[in-house]
């Protein structure tokens, strides 16, 4: 038969070795099941994975005969695990450590410090230049490099993305405050999403860049600012204050334990007591609290009210807890203002930046007394 047959140098697994390996695998299985019944905290996981890896090695080396196979085959197979490790490790580090970096890093600082520009709602060449940079990353996919509304993704969209070089066809309008509102609120139900996650300065920069593409710019009147609910207080750059929170903080908030009894609470129409008119009239803090906070925190600050956290399935709810004077956020009025101005992400708790110093004091005192 000559060259038609395989030569006999391939290693053949002996029955004895096969049985030994099979036996060892079964023993190792018993070991993992046994160890799982003992509570060793995090070690349970590592032991289980170590045993599984031993078993996997035995199968690969002996049953799959890698030990006698050509080394490159082993390398090929091992490489896939290397890539798997990269996949797992990079994804998890991003997920589990991004929050920390975010809080400490410059992004968070950017949110809290003053606007870089004294009046970002007034166009300057620097703002336009900055806007151009942002535009090329955030907007070209739909609005196109030249702003003609013909980006690569545009053909799939109805309505089509706006052509910024035309003076016609604008839904909200061509004044800076109007574009700023589009970037803040989006244009539902179209593909034009809200860019409220960008700091206000960046949104103003984008606004000015977009408006620089068409001739005959339109100018804002003071009334436009009022209409668009944009205040010209330099802190926060024309917006109350950015509602930004680190992912780590958000996760911690979402993990607040729920009490088992509230399963039947009517989720979307939570019930809560109101604060009486009389108390409101005599105490300005009570009035503010009734207006802004009672629907989620309850008349006595007792909490226990379900708040929609995320709209994705499964819909996540967070149950508010009672205010505790020991809480970091209630210890001092500074910490309180800081927390409440930022609010919490999603639908959890809106940020409140529009209160005056005396209102903050009233509100803080009112909550302190609950």
């Amino acid at each position, binding site marked *: 038969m000559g060259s038609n047959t395989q030569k006999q140098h391939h290693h053949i697994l002996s029955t004895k070795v096969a049985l030994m390996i*099979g036996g060892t695998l079964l023993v190792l299985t018993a070991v993992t099941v046994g160890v799982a019944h003992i509570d060793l905290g995090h070690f349970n996981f590592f032991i289980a994975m170590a045993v599984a890896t031993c078993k996997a090695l035995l199968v690969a080396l002996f049953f799959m005969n890698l030990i006698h196979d050509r080394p490159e085959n082993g390398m090929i*197979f091992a490489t896939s695990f290397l890539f798997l490790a990269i996949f797992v490790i990079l994804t998890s580090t991003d997920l589990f450590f991004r929050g920390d970096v975010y809080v400490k890093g410059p992004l968070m600082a950017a949110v809290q410090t003053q606007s870089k520009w004294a009046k970002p709602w007034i166009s300057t060449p620097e703002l336009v230049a900055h806007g151009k940079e942002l535009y090329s990353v955030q907007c070209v996919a739909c609005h196109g490099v030249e702003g003609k509304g013909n980006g690569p993704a545009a053909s799939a969209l109805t309505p089509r993305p706006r052509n910024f070089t035309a003076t016609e066809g604008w839904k909200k309008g061509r004044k800076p405050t109007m574009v700023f509102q589009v970037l803040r609120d989006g244009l539902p139900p179209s593909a034009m999403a809200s860019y409220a996650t960008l700091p206000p300065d960046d949104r103003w920069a984008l606004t000015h860049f977009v408006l620089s593409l068409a001739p005959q710019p339109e100018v804002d009147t003071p009334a436009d600012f009022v209409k668009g609910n944009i205040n010209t207080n330099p802190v926060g750059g024309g917006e109350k204050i950015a509602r930004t929170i680190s992912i780590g903080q958000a996760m911690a908030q979402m993990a607040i334990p729920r009490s088992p009894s509230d399963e039947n609470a009517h989720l979307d129409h939570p019930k809560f007591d109101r604060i009486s008119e009389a108390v409101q009239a005599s105490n300005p803090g009570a009035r503010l609290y009734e207006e802004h906070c009672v629907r989620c925190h309850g008349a006595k600050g007792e909490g226990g009210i379900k708040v929609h956290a995320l709209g994705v399935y499964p819909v996540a709810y967070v149950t508010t807890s009672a205010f505790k004077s020991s809480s970091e956020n209630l210890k001092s009025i500074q910490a309180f203002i800081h927390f409440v101005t930022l609010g919490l992400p999603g639908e959890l708790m809106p940020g409140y930046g529009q209160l005056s110093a005396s209102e903050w004091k009233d509100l803080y005192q009112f909550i302190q007394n609950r």
Partner: protein
Amino acid sequence: MSIEETTVHHHAHHFASADDEFEAAKQGMWIFLVTEVLMFGGLFVAYAIFRGLYPEMFHAAHQHLAVNMGATNTVVLITSSLTMALAVSSTQKGKRDHAIIYLVLTLLAACCFLVIKYFEYTHKFHDGLLPGGLFTNTELKDPKSPLFFSLYFMMTGLHGIHVLIGMGVITWILRRTVRHEFSPGYYTPVELVGFYWHFVDLVWIYLFPLLYLVG
């Protein structure tokens, strides 16, 4: 002329020898298994992320899996891996009768695995422990619990599909063995199907502790 000689395998003309052909086929199989690792890899990453995010939910949900059935299935699969390895070595040694017995045993073990899985799944269906929006169980309070069962069904389901495919290819080599198509001179398909089957075992070796034990 004996039957072996009439059904002898001729290597394809673009290979210098049968050995070359065998090595090329084997390397191809390893590369295929690499893609399989990466396919399951995506699910393992999803598992890692959700387990890291919601450890309590995972812990509560995993207690609704039947460890006994999972452990039995582990034993069944390991045994089938052993019989598969023996089927390959019997073919290599030219012991056709043994090879047939081992292949049949492997197939039986695979059936047994699927029957146990069937009982596990029906139990889950009955308890409403289902993925995503189908979840109707009321014992698990955490609203994120359906996530665990999405992962459970995706991971064990994809693995179950591999078991089914494995049974198909084992049946195919069993038929060819019965027809005297393999000999110590030619056993490439048997060995490669063996690889596939051991890989199915490998995946389960990780799935079992991750889902049933450490949740």
